């Protein structure tokens, strides 16, 4: 069941994920990593996907990109509509051509995500050479322009340098340059600042926001740290055990969380001494995805859990204008 907020006019979203399921077939059994995720993204909009590590954020992103390793992954159900077209049923060769010019992605660890044996300029230029058939010299010239655009000092001199010769922040800028090279409409950033120092984090977030406004991209910002995205995101989807448990506008969530899990994340203790990480105030650990608890998957850790939570799974329902929550007691949480 989808409680997607489709505009009344029926106009189509830039990106629409519907009832997405992803499973991993492992030796320990079937890990149900994504269990029916719905969300939409419009042009120029920033959607933050928030959740603890292991909640399925990266898998969701990779399923949208179509870069999951299958096997072990399978997608037993769901649709990923880009401009109304389902990417999941698109022939692979056609879909490949959407990666880069239409949808792009950057990753958490830029050092390991860049190829260590090719110069950074070569890796950026590859986008132009492969997708547009641009010759080497022109592709390099465009790569330099992009490096300048993402504020890499002395871009011309450093275009032939290798990833290990840059700082963490500069490497992430290179990843960003590569991702936006072909003017994608959707940019997915999977924890783009998690590996960086606090000051650099802010610079990278500012750059992403700037580029998003400049190119009117739809931006999906994945994070486990609400603090990082608060200023940048328009809407937030909170994930737990492969489901969206709350979805709302940023301000609303901050003011009044509508789900005990979101509330727990918000109440996490900020640890300024540790690279902006927060110590979770939520006791216990996320569930083993091969054995997700029945009812509300969060119930073993939820301070508000009642009997019904152990047997009946709460649906993601409207709890206010433009916001949904999947909790039997969402009203109580909101009123608290």
């Amino acid at each position, binding site marked *: 069941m989808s409680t997607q907020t489709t505009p009344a006019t029926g106009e189509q979203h830039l990106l629409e994920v519907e009832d997405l399921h992803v499973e991993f077939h492992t030796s320990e059994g079937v890990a149900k990593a994504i269990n029916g995720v719905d969300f939409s993204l419009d042009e120029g909009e920033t959607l933050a996907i928030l959740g603890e590590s292991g909640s399925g954020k990266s898998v969701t992103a990779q399923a949208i990109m179509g870069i999951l390793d299958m096997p072990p992954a399978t997608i037993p159900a769901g649709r990923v509509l880009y401009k109304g077209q389902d990417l999941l049923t698109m022939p692979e060769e056609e879909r490949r051509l959407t990666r880069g010019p239409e949808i792009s992605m950057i990753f958490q660890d830029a050092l390991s995500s860049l190829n*260590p044996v090719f110069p950074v300029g070569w890796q950026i230029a590859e986008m132009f050479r492969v997708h547009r058939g641009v010759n080497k010299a022109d592709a390099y010239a465009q790569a330099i322009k992009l490096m300048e655009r993402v504020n890499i000092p002395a871009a011309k001199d450093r275009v032939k340098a290798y990833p290990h010769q840059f700082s963490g922040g500069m490497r992430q800028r290179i990843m960003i340059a590569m991702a936006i090279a072909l003017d994608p409409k959707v940019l997915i950033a999977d924890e783009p600042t998690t590996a960086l120092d606090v000051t650099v984090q802010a610079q990278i977030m500012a750059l992403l926001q700037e580029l998003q406004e400049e190119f009117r991209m739809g931006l999906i910002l994945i994070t486990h740290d609400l603090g990082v995205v608060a200023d940048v995101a328009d809407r937030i989807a909170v994930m737990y055990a492969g489901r969206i448990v709350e979805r709302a506008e940023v301000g609303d969530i901050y003011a009044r969380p509508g789900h005990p899990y979101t509330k727990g994340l918000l109440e996490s203790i900020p640890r300024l001494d540790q690279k902006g990480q927060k110590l979770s105030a939520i006791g216990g650990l996320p569930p083993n995805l091969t054995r997700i608890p029945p009812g509300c998957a969060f119930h073993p850790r939820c301070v508000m859990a009642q009997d019904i939570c152990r047997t009946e799974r709460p649906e993601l329902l409207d709890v206010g204008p433009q916001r949904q929550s999947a909790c039997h007691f969402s009203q109580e949480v909101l009123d608290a």
Partner: protein
Amino acid sequence: MGKYIVRRLLQMIPVVILSTFLIYAMVFAMPGDPTAGKCGERPCPAAYIEKFNAKYHLDEPLPVQYGYYAKNVVQGDLGENQYGRPVAEELSERFTVTAKLAVMALIFEGVIGILAGVLAGLRKGGFIDNLVLISTLFVISVPIFVTGFAAQYFLGLKWEIFPALATGKDPSLFSLVLPAMVLGSTSLAYIARLMRSNIAENIKSDYVRTAKAKGLTPRRVVGVHTLRNSLIPVVTFMGYDFGALLGGAIVTEGIFGINGVGGYIFKGIQNRDGIAVVGAVTALVIVYLLMNLLVDLLYGALDPRISND
């Protein structure tokens, strides 16, 4: 870079001097008569022994003898063997054959080993993977003389696909095919396995995931982004292996009647032909050191994270 090469070449000098001195000492300090066997069945006449001793300064202390020898070596004179032929000339003939064989073995093991390793690594646990694992295990566990004789018997004599022997001073390339395959077989197996594990590991790496996210073709994701990184250890292995191959292969040369360096040294030791052995081994030490340098340079060129400064 140029500085690095010069420094490495300078470092080689003491290594070459010390190792050749050790070989020289071992060969000439061995108990017995260095002229034994040089005059057929009979002991050599006193005049010959005197001349021989004078020529190689055998009455002087060992370091001095070596000094004279080294002086000649630097001038390109490796002395004469027991049949009176210049060692340098014989070695260069032998070395040409060995080098041809080594290059062919290297191409064989490299091309097939890398191909098999890539195919196996891309589908770990698949049919090709199992085929590669079993056949390479077989090749590794069977001694080379068994592989050699079997190949010679079946491919050479029975089915007559390749010549069974490669004798003479200048054997044809075609006659060296079978020996090269035998010679390269063990390394081929190691290369296939090394490549397989590298590919299987790198295909799961973050930068390969990035390559897919860039919308590159699967061919490019594997052929450019995965292969390049996976090749680095393999190329290094092949470099060292080439150095070893240039040292000759006594068993393979023996089976196929090849007049290579390996057999030359072997015969030299058997006949106690000190000058021939020392000359050949000195040449090999230098070749091996140069190969080492080449491998290090290649490694630096393939992996920009390694700096040769």
